[in-house]
């Protein structure tokens, strides 16, 4: 317990940001109409592709002589990119379907 308290106090900025983001995540999509559920899911899916940043860092840090590291990093970058690019493109295509909604 004590331990935990200390940690929280130590990383309070992180704790705050996390908590606020949770609130925001909930508030922001609170009133989404059910017809938009799928595009929203797909959009969110694209956003967590931000993990690609980590992949890039790993790749960029890897020791050029350490083949396995390079391969893993390379894979990570490809997969991450798939998530990001594919995600956003698919979402956009879905939303095209709802374009008339604007009317």
């Amino acid at each position, binding site marked *: 317990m004590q331990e935990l308290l200390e940690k929280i106090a130590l990383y309070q900025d992180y704790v705050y940001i996390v908590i606020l983001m949770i609130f925001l995540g909930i508030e922001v*999509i609170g009133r989404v109409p059910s017809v938009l559920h799928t595009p929203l899911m797909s959009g969110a899916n694209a956003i*967590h592709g931000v993990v690609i*940043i*980590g992949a890039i860092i*790993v790749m960029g840090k890897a020791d050029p002589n350490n083949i396995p590291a390079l391969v893993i990093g390379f*894979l990570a970058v490809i997969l991450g990119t798939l998530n990001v690019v594919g*995600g956003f493109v698919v979402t956009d295509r879905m939303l095209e379907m709802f374009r008339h909604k*604007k009317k």
Partner: protein
Amino acid sequence: MLLTILYLLASVSFILGLKLLSNPATARRGNLIAAGGMALAIVGTIFLYRQEDGAPLGNYGWIFGGLIIGSVVGTLAAKKVQMTAMPEMVSLFNGMGGACAALISITEFNQLAHHLHQPHEIAIGDIFPGSSAYQQWMGESLIILAGLIIGSVSFSGSMIAWGKLNGKIRDFSFKGQHLFNIVLLLVIIGLASWIIGVHENANSTVFYMIFILSLLYGVFFVLPIGGADMPVVISLLNSFTGVAAACGGFLYHNKAMLTGGILVGAAGTLLTILMCKAMNRSLLNVLIGSFGGAAAAGGVQKAQGSFKEISVSDTAILLSYAQRVMIVPGYGLAVAQAQHVCHELERLLTDKGVDVKYAIHPVAGRMPGHMNVLLAEADVDYDKLLEMEAANELFSHTDVVLVLGANDVVNPAAKTDAASPIYGMPILEVELAKNCIVNKRSMKPGYAGIENDLFFRPKTSMLFGDAKKVLESLCAEIKTL
């Protein structure tokens, strides 16, 4: 330092994007904004990121190689996928994200273990102000393991979900599977805490064991869940991946990853719950898959009372001389890929001066908005689609309702029978219309696996056969009239 600003912009763009995404009028812009933010973050990272020793990133060849391959493949896949296969796609991409997170964890773990054997280096990458080497180990390994486990589960889970959606994998569960899953999870957690605690010798075999077990868990987590519930499951795994990405954020103190990840984690979870609500089920109920089980059992229920059939030609006449016809599309229409024929039928009737409209139930089909997507693909005019409320008002002034491969969404049990699993779900009240023609291949139940009284009502007549074939012959008939 400029990079920090870029990340800040990215975070903001994610929040804004998600906000706009949840409103039909702005959704598309929202998606683009988020994408823009993402681009900033990526480009920024590549060129502005500095390692602890201030050196820029290396291996540009590999990085760009990966980016290009990923982009090309991703774009092509996303462009050529069938509208109705999109949930599969999402599931696939989600899996990629999870795998990416897991791979990152693997690399970072090796790094960490490596550092441990050069104590003087420990300070490097110490992310927590004022924490000792031990605490650093605890902190970092905790984060790394979390990323590994969540990422792997999300990966294997998404793959199964993907397989199920495109029919490659069928539902599978054995007795006591839930117990098994729980045990598996406990084992994983146990091993993880062991690694975190005992940092003297970072045992990488155990680490990889955790990796494998997590993958397994993902598989067994999704396997027993009814195939039709995949949209919900995908949304859930989606939020998992979000959390996994957030772990990366902690590891690199990268606020863009952190905020983006948590945002998706929270929003995704809420979205999952909203989806269940729309089908009026509880998330737990979906996960334990009791419902999917019922589907099997449902078939057994014997039909009560008798129903009357109607021939294609009679249907053709009935439709042609009606004033208003309402079409109720359902999952069956999607299965039969009959959206185009359906659109043709609508046009034929309209030419005959019949007022044709579509009544869209929010959870008709197998993903939210499934019917909108399906019909939009066949260029059905958007104004002809009525939301449930609007439709329910119009039914009483409708001559013929044509139910095409829909079942649960027109099941009166939802209103009348409190015992029914779909009790309380708002439905399309087709009985209000003068006549109701139901097209399906048999008397088999639908997704919810329950009998549908509607079929036995006096006003209702059944038109058996595959939606596509039936509609084709129907169109032919009408042309001859």
